[in-house]
């Protein structure tokens, strides 16, 4: 009897200790990766990073890649935010119980985890090739194609958050507005979206955090550029692709620049996801 008890007790302690160890392993990897990025990145953070272009390689910086990334990320948001918010609204307000709504919601969740390199291939086929054929090659790979690929990464994030956030808005608000004779579109735009604004914004920021770090979809769409360009139809440099190229290089000076870039991206992305967490937790408090 007591032997059984001791065995159960020991099993319990062993399991609990192992679960603590598992948590420590997870945290250790986080600290390891962040520490390495911080350590290598900070020593390489210099003003030339922001003033010189990648054409000068180890004598240069990342300015064109930073500008390229900012432009493409912003354009991607401009594409996927309106579409995503409207699509999410459709799911929450017009199709919350219809079969079409259920299947779109389901597929959206799948798109959320779809392999990004395949989305890059898709954009290559539907944008890069046709543009190149139409313009006889003077426009082919472009920042625009890159932002469409990034937008496909961000889209499902926004759809899902918008859908969830609008569902959190209490039904009484809808009923009150409708009883005043407001048409549905006005209700949606002026009442519901206002009520869920911070939640929807959270989704947009989450999407930005998600797409800002993506490399694979840009490889066959934005290509790369060693010089500064702001024209959306030019081949465009980006931070992740430049980091990828510099990491592949044997030159330690380029590794240093890559680490500095990695630090900038990681800080940007992590700051965004922490910010959304703060916004989101406030949201939860106000509606639960």
């Amino acid at each position, binding site marked *: 009897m007591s032997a059984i008890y001791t065995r159960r007790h020991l099993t319990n302690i062993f399991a609990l200790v192992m679960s603590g160890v598992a948590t420590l392993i997870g945290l250790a990897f986080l600290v390891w990766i962040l520490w390495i990025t911080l350590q290598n990145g900070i020593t390489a953070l210099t003003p030339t990073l922001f003033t010189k272009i990648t*054409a*000068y*390689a180890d004598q240069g910086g990342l300015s064109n890649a930073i500008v390229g990334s900012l432009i493409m990320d912003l*354009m991607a948001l*401009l*594409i996927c*935010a*309106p579409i995503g*918010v409207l699509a999410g609204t459709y799911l929450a307000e017009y199709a919350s119980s219809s079969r079409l709504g259920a299947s779109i919601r389901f597929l959206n969740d799948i798109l959320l985890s779809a392999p990004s390199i395949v989305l890059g291939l898709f954009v290559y086929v539907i944008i*890069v090739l046709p543009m*190149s054929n139409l*313009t*006889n*090659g*003077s*426009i*082919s*790979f472009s920042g*625009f194609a890159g932002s469409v690929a990034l937008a496909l990464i961000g889209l499902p994030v926004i759809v899902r958050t918008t859908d969830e956030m609008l569902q959190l808005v209490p039904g009484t608000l809808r009923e009150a507005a409708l009883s005043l004779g407001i048409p549905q579109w006005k209700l949606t735009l*002026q009442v519901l*979206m*206002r009520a869920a*604004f911070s939640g929807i914004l959270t989704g947009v920021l989450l999407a930005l955090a998600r797409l800002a770090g993506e490399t694979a979809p840009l490889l066959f769409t934005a*290509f*790369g*550029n*060693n*010089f500064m*360009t702001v*024209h*959306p*139809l*030019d*081949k465009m440099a980006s931070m992740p692709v430049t980091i990828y*190229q510099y990491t*592949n*290089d*044997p*030159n330690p000076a380029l590794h240093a620049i890559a680490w500095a870039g990695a630090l900038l991206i990681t800080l940007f992305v992590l700051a965004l996801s922490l910010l959304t967490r703060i916004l989101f937790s406030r949201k939860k408090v106000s509606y639960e």
Partner: protein
Amino acid sequence: MLTSFKLPSRLGTLAIAIAASMFGMTAQATDITGAGSSFVYPVISKWSAAYAEKTGNHINYQSIGSGGGIAQIKAGTVDFGASDMPLKAEDLAKFGLGQFPDVIGGIVPAFNVAGVAAGTLVLDGPTLADIYLGKITTWNDPAIAKLNPSLHLPSSHITVVHRSDGSGTSFNFTDYLSKVSPEWKTKVGEGTAVQWPAGIGGKGNEGVSAYIKQIPNSIGYVEYAYALQNKIGYAKMKNAAGKVVEPNTASFQAAANTADWKNAKDFNLLMTNAPGATAWPITATSWVIMYKTPKNAANTKVAFDFFKWAYEHGQDSARSLDYVPLPDSLVQQIETYWSSEYKM
């Protein structure tokens, strides 16, 4: 709250404005884009930076491998391709392309073995082929030891590094191995990408150099500048004449001197396993590939101007990276080729 609601509509206006400016503007890209060979990347990127400062014209060259250069120029997505594998006459005719050399350089076996300094290891073609076939697997193999009686080589496993992308460097390297090893010729053959019997793949000359540097007891093949600039050990080779030669501008030049450019249609000529006592056995040319009837005349004009400038003013930077600049007679021949073959 009302003001914050208006944000989406303002974003919408901004989006429309940007879209309008994008498609309304004549899509006149000021950049000339070239892509391909990582073999020439060090020198082209140097030329491009200097040329941009001089003329303000941007030559955006992306090092994606010779295979990539050929594929992208055929697809018409870049203004010029660069490849260390020449295209065959029928291929050029089919796509309406022309090609001309831009620089000559050497491919060296590069290694990372503790205690063995750069330029001390000696290899010959058959041994190199057997290493890449996976038949020689340790550094103290009798075949290597016989060539290096004075070196103390470890018993460690040899890690073979090759290219993972389509590469002109691979093409010249496998062409050389096919010439010196019948077994390589039948089992593997030559090409920008082959079915490698052993080893790991690095992307570009960059990736191969990085792996050699990182992995102890590895061997690979890279353009000479990559070995020198990154302080990677390189081997001497026994050439076709049976002499051991060191890789340097002189031995690359000696191999280049054996080339008979006058009789090479479309400059299609390989220099691997060149005869001559001082010739480096894996010397290679890199070519520029462009449309004979330009798709974008203005861009093509700038590209020609760039290469003309490079032949005249880029020699020193080529030499400083241990490439062999093209001889004057060849440059003249290229300029004749331009005016006879290209419709400007």
